């Protein structure tokens, strides 16, 4: 029982980080109907940037987030303007799979050149400290990571729901034609939306680098998890991504502690398949459009 609860705690804390990565991915899908296969690579790029800022300048990975998010925001906007905007809108969804996969490979190549392919990790002085609460161990880094993710998701929520620009994003997701007719410039929303998605990847990347060792090829593993989460939650739904991340991380943490860690990786996909059998659109997906 102790191991189970410990597993659940770990699962919830991990879910926060995945929720943050996945919220950016689902936002990009919601706005542009683009499945961004480079989201994982952007997370890893964020992790490398945090790593570099830490090793070269001693900047704490959490404090580096304002810098890395801005950098990745710019990368995201450039990817949209250079590679996605030229695609014809009729087949943008299909072609974007290839284009964003190519972007992922490009980023991977660049990262391999700069940082080589060996594993890196960000070893802060608090990397191994933990608290014990009622006999349960809570790693400090994971707790901070979780809180930061909540904070970032909260900011994203406020941006989408309380600002004029956020309303324009949601309007474009829910009905692009009407949004255009009301004066929303969809190209601009797309570029900024892609930038925001990449910025969430950067914030998550800082945290990811603190939690796990990573290398330039780590994004393959990440993107398969992220896709599971956003599909489980319903493509285009930010709330769904959060719930999807919770369901998937908690269940795999439970499996790891109750059965064996060997099976926990597979739990991701088993949960996904089970949910899709019952609800083909995912938990919060709508038939045609995103749900933010």
């Amino acid at each position, binding site marked *: 029982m102790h191991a189970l609860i410990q597993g659940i705690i770990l699962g919830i804390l991990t879910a926060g980080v995945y929720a943050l990565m996945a919220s950016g991915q689902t936002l990009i899908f919601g706005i542009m109907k683009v499945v961004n296969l480079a989201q994982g690579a952007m997370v890893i790029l964020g992790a490398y940037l945090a790593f570099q800022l830490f090793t070269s300048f001693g900047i704490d990975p959490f404090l580096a987030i304002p810098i890395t998010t801005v950098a990745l925001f710019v990368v995201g906007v450039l990817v949209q303007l250079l590679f996605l905007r030229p695609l014809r809108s009729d087949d943008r969804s299909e072609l974007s799979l290839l284009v964003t996969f190519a972007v992922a490979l490009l980023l991977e190549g660049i990262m391999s050149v700069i940082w080589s392919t060996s594993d890196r990790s960000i070893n802060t002085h608090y990397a191994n400290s933990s608290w014990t609460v009622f006999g349960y161990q809570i790693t400090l880094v994971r707790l901070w990571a979780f809180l930061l993710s909540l904070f970032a998701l909260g900011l994203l929520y406020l941006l989408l729901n309380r600002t*004029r620009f956020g*309303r*324009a994003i*949601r*309007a474009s997701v*829910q*009905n692009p*034609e*009407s*949004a*255009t*007719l*009301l*004066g*929303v*410039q*969809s190209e601009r929303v797309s570029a900024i939306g892609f930038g925001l998605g990449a910025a969430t990847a950067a914030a998550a990347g800082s945290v990811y680098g603190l939690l796990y060792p990573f290398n330039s090829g780590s994004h393959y593993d990440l993107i398969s998890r992220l896709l599971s989460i956003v599909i489980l939650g319903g493509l285009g739904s930010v709330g769904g991504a959060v719930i999807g991340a919770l369901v998937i991380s908690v269940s795999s943490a439970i499996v790891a502690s109750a059965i064996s860690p060997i099976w926990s990786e597979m739990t991701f996909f088993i949960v996904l398949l089970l949910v899709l059998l019952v609800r083909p659109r995912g938990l919060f997906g709508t038939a045609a459009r995103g*749900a*933010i």
Partner: protein
Amino acid sequence: MSEPRELLRVTDIEVRYGAIRALKGVSFTVGEGEVVALLGANGAGKTTTQKTISGMLRPAVGSITFEGRRIDGIPAHELIGLGICHVPEGRHVFPRMTVHENLEMGAFRFKRVDSADLERVLELFPRLRERIKQQAGTLSGGEQQMLAIGRALMGKPRLLLLDEPSMGLAPLIVAQIFEIVREINTTGVTVLVVEQNAAQALTLADRGYVLETGEIVLEGTGRELLADDRIRAAYLGEEIAAS
């Protein structure tokens, strides 16, 4: 009655979808303060005409002017800045935004929402006031149509393009909506309405044009068209032969 000042002029526009010519040289005018109806069967080109005016489609040939200024070629999101507001067919509200947020989106072209405009829209549509916090997707069809029109009004339109406002609505609601359109018109908003429901549209309209397979085949005042045998046969469902 003196001729109203010309607000919109459509000259010989041709619109193509690939090899298909959806509009084959359509010309008409809309005067300031008028209600003009575009009538015709499915596929006649009514919606295409409106979409071309609102910048969602480009004419291959021909020109469109608004207050004498050429507007074909201006992207859709800029046209609303001139006061052209298009309510497309099928009640395109933002389903997962509240009624209030939908109305705020209507005023997107202004940096802030004009509370007097909001009040006016809510007076025009008391139902929307009752449901102001409700998600738009949960409204009935008629309420969604009211919201779509109300949202357009938030953009302070000078020319309102309405596409099939009666589609799929109960007769009572249709009558209500047309009554409101008349009210909107009396406040100085020019209206170009596309309708299959010719009887309703023509009682409201000052003038009408009838489109058939991409061409205007008939035009006249609302009253003239209502009395026209061809209209009665084709759109009002009357059997001329039997009468």
